């Protein structure tokens, strides 16, 4: 009797603390999201009432070359937002940890780490504006630099040329993103017992082998970085908005900007809703994969 009362005191009465949060999430996120899904099955200009259209918007998307271009561009941007910064971040983190920290001390490491992290503190649109100005074909700093170096042949309208627009945006994103994996990996390598690496070094393991060893030991962090940045890449909007508006043509169009145009420039709200619903499906699938992979990894690591 006594025990049951204690258990009641300990375990009940928490519900009311959760309720407001759940209600707000339902109202501010849940309802708009479900509305958007419903709208994706309609034809709607944003004025008056939507008309049911079945799967028409989805069929249209699959047949729309701009839609496919936007996803293709997105895959290339994943390279710039996820793959390259992660690899570069691994190498730099390893060099900082393995060479700089041991030979030059913590001061050099923190200066380099902070310096490389700085772009990350900017709003991504401000990063875009900084670079839009540097890449400006007329008075921009990059072309001025190329001309000063006698390479005027290389000077071009970086963002205005379909051949260089997407690589330029990608380059900007690499610059912007690098600090994030670097800081995470620097924290990760610090939980590695230095003796493991010292032993490997004494055994004559070359740098490349030690790199593989470290990469293996910090797999959980690599997974976190890869998945958060991939999801981020899929939502990329700001830099496209300030740098290229998806152009020239469809050279830099991405799904989120494509949807923005459908919603607010073309009054094709149903179509925009369908595109964003597809984006959501991909992102949720990735999130689910992420959570599963993390569980799997945790179990594997505990099993050892």
């Amino acid at each position, binding site marked *: 009797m006594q025990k049951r009362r204690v258990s009641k005191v300990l375990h009940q009465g928490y519900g009311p603390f959760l309720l407001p949060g759940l209600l707000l999430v339902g109202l501010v996120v849940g309802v708009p999201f479900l509305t958007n899904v419903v709208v994706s099955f309609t034809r709607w200009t944003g004025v008056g009432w939507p008309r049911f259209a079945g799967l028409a918007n989805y069929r249209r998307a699959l047949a729309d070359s701009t839609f496919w271009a936007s996803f293709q561009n997105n895959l290339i941007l994943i390279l710039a937002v996820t793959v390259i910064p992660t690899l570069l971040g691994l190498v730099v983190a390893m060099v900082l940890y393995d060479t700089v920290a041991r030979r030059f001390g913590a001061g050099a490491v923190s200066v380099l780490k902070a310096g490389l992290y700085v772009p990350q503190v900017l709003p991504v649109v401000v990063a875009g504006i900084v670079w839009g100005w540097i890449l400006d074909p007329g008075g921009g700093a990059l072309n001025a630099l190329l001309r000063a170096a006698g390479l005027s042949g290389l000077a071009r309208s970086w963002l205005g040329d379909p051949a260089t627009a997407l690589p330029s945006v990608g380059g900007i994103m690499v610059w912007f993103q690098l600090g994030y994996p670097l800081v995470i990996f620097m924290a990760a390598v610090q939980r590695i017992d230095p003796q493991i690496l010292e032993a490997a070094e004494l055994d004559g393991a070359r740098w490349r082998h030690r790199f593989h060893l470290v990469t293996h030991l910090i797999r959980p962090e690599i997974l976190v970085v890869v998945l958060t940045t991939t999801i981020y890449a899929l939502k990329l909007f700001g830099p496209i908005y300030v740098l290229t508006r998806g152009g020239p043509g469809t050279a830099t169009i991405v799904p989120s900007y494509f949807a923005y145009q459908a919603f607010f420039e073309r009054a094709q709200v149903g179509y925009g809703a369908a595109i964003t619903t597809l984006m959501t499906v991909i992102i949720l699938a990735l*999130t689910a994969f992420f959570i599963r992979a993390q569980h799997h990894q945790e179990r594997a690591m505990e099993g050892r």
Partner: protein
Amino acid sequence: MKARKAIPVNEPQPAPEPGVGALRARGSVRSRRGRRNLTAWTVLLVLFLFMGLVLSPFLVVAMNAVKSATEYSNLGPLALPRHLTLEVIQRFWERVDFSGKLWNSFVISGSVAVLATLFALPSAFALGIGRLRGRAAYLVVFIVANTLPHEALAYPIYTFAKALGLYDTRLSVVIVFTVIQGAFGTYLLSSVLSAFPRELVEAALVDGCSKLQLLVRIVTPVSLPTLAVLFTFFFIWTWNEFFLPLILLVSDARQTVPIAVSVAQGQHNVDATMASASALLGFLPCIAFFLLFQRTLTRGVTAGSVK
């Protein structure tokens, strides 16, 4: 990303950074500090050059923001400014009413940081301390609420905001981000609170403390360091947000800093020096936050990115 950077901070009190410092101390104790041979110096030089390259855009922008327009058109973007002038910055500042934009960003980000922390605390208390049944499912709800692309919420939010008379008000942005950030905060804080000392909770409850008193008098004070990390993150994330504020805040007087600088950039009569002034004013506040919150930030980004 940033919320883009959804990184779980799982430890209530991140361990005092063992890392590099400890490594060096340890090395010097055993006098095993590596040799500084030629290769090592080369590596260091390359890294510093690389860092210089990464930081060079900031330098170029700052350099041209303090030039006069004539000097720019005569000598180009790469020449060092001969006469420092704040004239262009001042002109841009007045033209976009930058004080007003700073104030808008500050009010919105500050309100979201406070409200989202207040949102996260009770929900995380229920899930982390109360360990409600179905806890895992609730956590999924909160994390999904934070992960959903804003694009998939934008049009309905825009329509509802109009219907409710909240369109083009700072309040609309505050409400939306309080919930989106607060949802992430709930996820994060609940995993921190699940490591809260059980004896403390049980002792308090058995002594007749109510759940509310437990939250206010015991859990909150102990969790203050984590709440400070959350607060800082919410503030900066909201400051950096672009997509939803762009849609919800149309009138000039209500825009935030990132929107004001992006709008100014699209205008035809903005010359190169003014564009660099706008970029400079766009990043200066963020550099200030970075310097101000550096410790909190790096701790938050890195601490327990993995359980």
